[in-house]
């Protein structure tokens, strides 16, 4: 770590959930980046590629999107993440391949942030 303040990336298509997670992260004084769709997520990640320590990804997004492209990007760049989903059954084969921990919705936003930070290799 260059600075002692973690930066966390949040992806969720539901604005209220996203805001709740943002607040929980800000409460812990982390720097927050957030997006609600895959395209915006990848834009932000490309731009801040070296400045992000961990991420929380909602699995099922609007318009039939899933977080898969974002998860792959993070894996390629060695950034840890957790999956945050209410859709535990319907995940397709590709999503099952993702090895990141899965947090079932609804969960306390603070717990979600804690789990994400816990993924950072110390």
């Amino acid at each position, binding site marked *: 770590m260059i600075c002692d303040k973690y930066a966390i990336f949040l992806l969720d298509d539901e604005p209220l*959930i996203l805001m709740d997670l943002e607040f929980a992260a800000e409460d812990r004084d982390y720097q927050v980046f957030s997006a609600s769709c895959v395209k915006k997520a990848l834009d932000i990640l490309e731009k801040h590629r070296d400045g992000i320590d961990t991420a929380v990804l909602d699995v*099922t997004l609007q318009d039939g999107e899933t977080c898969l492209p974002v998860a792959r990007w993070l894996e390629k760049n060695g950034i840890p993440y957790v999956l945050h989903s209410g859709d535990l059954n319907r995940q397709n084969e590709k999503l099952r391949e993702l090895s990141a921990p899965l947090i079932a919705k*609804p969960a306390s936003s603070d717990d979600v942030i804690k789990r994400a930070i816990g993924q950072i290799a110390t």
Partner: protein
Amino acid sequence: MSFKSDEDHIGNTGEVQMDKSQARSMPSFDDSPDRFRSTHPDDRFSGASGVLFEQAMAQTRMAICLSDPHAEDLPIVFANRAFRQLTGYSEEEIIGNNCRFLQGPRTSQEPLEKIRRAIEEEDVVVVEVLNYRKDGTPFWNALHLGPIYDADGRLVYFFGSQWDVSDVRAAREEERIARVMARELSHRMKNMFSVISGIVNITGRTRGIRSEAAEINSRIQALGRAYETTLDDAAEGDIDMGDAIRAILSPYDDGDGRLNLRGDGTRAPFAGISVVGLLLHELAANATKHGAWSQEGGTVSVVWGSSADGNELQIDWLEQGGPPFEAAKIQDGTGTAIMERLVAGGGGSIEREWTDGGLLAKLRIGV
């Protein structure tokens, strides 16, 4: 209606009539085996087994036909009464024709291809194919087709049995749709719980009541977890209590032996789940604040099952290794009041005993 005109109907629609007369204890056999025999003098259903075969053919509700593989275009040479009833065609319309007359506009090619291959390779095949009756109504036909050989091993017929499985398919389809719906509903509901949680948190923050908001939220989340399992088997109507209890208590389980769950496969109706969810949450929250989980090494065991008469769901909550009992800390909590109101409302009971090791709570909920 004269008796004469009834007689005239025998052949096609007269089949129903014959069933009625059968009910009046007049034995009535399908005479198509007779006609088949008269036109196929070489193929005798001879001996005792032949007679049995004839009677079985005549009486079975399974539609059966035989086709001649040595004649041009594999024509049907025999069709029993059930076949004629199923398809609505008369014997004259059936005999001599390839069975493709049962196909129609929405019959798919895939099962037909399997049938063609089976005939080519003299193989047995079972396919479901959309067929059409004479009046144009479609039905799903579970067709079993296979070769019949004579004593010398020569192929003599192809045997086909037909069964209308339209109802079975409809039921399967309904079940599939119900499952998809249940999953979608489950997903949306979990999301909704998450959104509610977000609203509570955000409101709590803006109004400066964050700890109250957090308390409300922990209850909402317990409820959300309780419902999680119910929706996943919503099609069943009742739910596995074990799955629900595990889900409700999952955030408290560190996998390190501080939570022990033991139960039989008791299922309970859907309606009780919110009570169970909130009660277990209150017990867990109290254990964390004042009870066994407030100190190192404390454990909680949850044991569940149904009463002998099956009318009551029983859940025992046993804390061990907790701090000494201090009545004042426990009695006054709002959680306790909520528990009692909840259980009373559901026509159940909760008994609490404190021992040196901690709380023993016995929940009894009518089902």
